[in-house]
């Protein structure tokens, strides 16, 4: 998104609970979230001028299947895939069109139905040959586990620092009626669950999930018809890895670099962030990302999390709804769910999860294929 152009408001948000719904189709999941967002926004489906559908493992044409559940008004529907960041990227595309004055109001629906068990990293999410699946190299938790091992070797981060992310996530999830897991876990329970890829135990890995999210974006001028307290999508930008000769980087994209760009464009800094969402597919996601977003110094993510700074009552509340770990992770739906929670926080509608005086929120969403960082504010 560039400077200038119309401002973008997040007018409505909605979710289908995350969890296991074997009897429900993607269209049913998407429809539920879509209806909730329309009701939340106070608009009718006929007001939507373009649809964007974030999904990863559903077939071609899924976007239309879902939007047709809501109506058949001839609007353009686009399928957007960025693995676990699909609906975040879809929101950026919708916002860009609104900024350019092409549409006044768009809807983004994110959806996924997933089978159980470790994701075939080299099969459904990526190319098996390229990721060396047969060689034993395509271990999705392995990427985060390897980042954690190096972080421990260089900075002295402890295994329990990573595990604490899951303790907090599950405590927050227990306050979220849409979350896949709503049961708090102790540190002992997290660390003694079976090891998947050292140092990551089972409860430090997000589940596979079914679920959907929906977000309605509109122009600032249009939003005035419906609300006196708009929540703005101030900035949303994406990136892919930047090659640095001689340097090794395991993460999905240049998070610190992109965060800096987004802060500059939004005219804010890390000190202005009141509440955030980050990609905690596995616990190192939060420990490493708080450093890259500038919430603490490089190397200090472990103690930062351990000391409670990312709790709802902490300095930088992170993943207040349970995150990927506890809220769940239907890949295509997660971006929209991150936006949903930030919007609820900024509106003061987060109930027992409410962060006091939340005015500015930040979202970091990652996927195999790139990252997306967004800033929202009232």
């Amino acid at each position, binding site marked *: 998104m560039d400077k200038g152009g119309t401002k973008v408001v997040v007018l409505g948000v909605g979710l289908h609970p995350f969890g296991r719904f074997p009897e429900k189709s993607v269209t049913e999941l998407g429809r539920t979230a879509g209806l909730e967002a329309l009701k939340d926004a106070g608009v009718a489906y006929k007001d939507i001028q373009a649809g964007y559908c974030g999904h990863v493992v559903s077939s071609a044409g899924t976007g239309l299947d879902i939007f047709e559940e809501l109506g058949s008004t001839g609007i353009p529907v686009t399928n957007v895939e960025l693995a676990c960041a699909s609906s975040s990227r879809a929101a950026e595309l919708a916002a860009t069109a609104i900024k350019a004055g092409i549409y006044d109001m768009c809807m983004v629906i994110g959806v996924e139905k997933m089978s159980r068990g470790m994701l075939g990293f080299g099969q459904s999410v990526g190319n098996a040959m390229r990721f060396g*699946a047969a*060689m*034993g*190299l395509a271990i999705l938790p392995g990427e985060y586990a*390897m980042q954690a091992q190096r972080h421990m070797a260089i900075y002295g981060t402890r295994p329990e620092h990573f595990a604490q992310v899951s303790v907090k996530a599950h405590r927050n999830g227990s306050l979220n009626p849409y979350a896949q897991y709503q049961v708090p876990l102790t540190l002992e329970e997290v660390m003694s669950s079976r090891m*998947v890829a050292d140092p*990551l135990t089972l409860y430090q890995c997000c589940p596979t999930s079914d679920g959907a999210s929906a977000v309605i974006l509109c122009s600032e001028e249009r939003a005035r018809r419906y609300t006196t307290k708009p929540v703005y999508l101030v900035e949303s930008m994406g990136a892919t890895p930047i090659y640095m000769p001689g340097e090794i980087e395991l993460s999905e994209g240049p998070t610190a670099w992109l965060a800096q760009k987004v802060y500059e464009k939004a005219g804010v800094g890390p000190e202005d962030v009141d509440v955030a969402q980050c990609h905690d597919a596995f616990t190192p996601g939060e420990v490493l990302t708080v450093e890259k977003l500038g919430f603490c110094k490089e190397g200090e993510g472990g103690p930062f999390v351990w000391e409670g700074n990312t709790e709802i009552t902490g300095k930088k509340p992170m993943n207040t709804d349970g995150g990927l770990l506890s809220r769940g992770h239907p890949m295509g739906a997660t971006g929209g769910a991150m936006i949903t929670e930030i919007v609820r926080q900024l509106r003061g509608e987060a109930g027992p999860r409410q962060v006091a005086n939340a005015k500015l929120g930040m979202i970091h969403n990652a996927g195999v294929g790139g990252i997306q960082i967004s800033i929202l504010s009232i």
Partner: protein
Amino acid sequence: MVPLRSGMMRLPDTPDGKPVLLGSRCPKCAVYYFPRRQICIACGQNGLDETDLSARGKVWTYTIARQTPPGSLVEAPYAVAVVELPEKVAVRAVLTDVDLESVRVGMEVEITLAKMKEDEEGNEVVSYKFRPV
């Protein structure tokens, strides 16, 4: 012997020899890449020289897979590492002939031929792993 993935390594002449990883080297700016590629990302040169990469490197990071991932011919538990070669390239590989509890960042390792499976014609399908020096 046939390679599991083509274009990654040169097979040794005998089953007890070492494979050699095939990399690219930019003739303009001397940056190395693995696996081989067409274009230099550092300077944009189109067309890179084929080069043999070092047999030894250091563990840049690692993890221990405790659950056999989908599609893997290697059974858990096993160590997988990002090995950094002197050419400043990163090679992901399974570590073999190693006590899992002893794997450390910085460990010196060398390449070795690994038998992965037999194909339908009875050929041995091989790949590369690294083992402690």
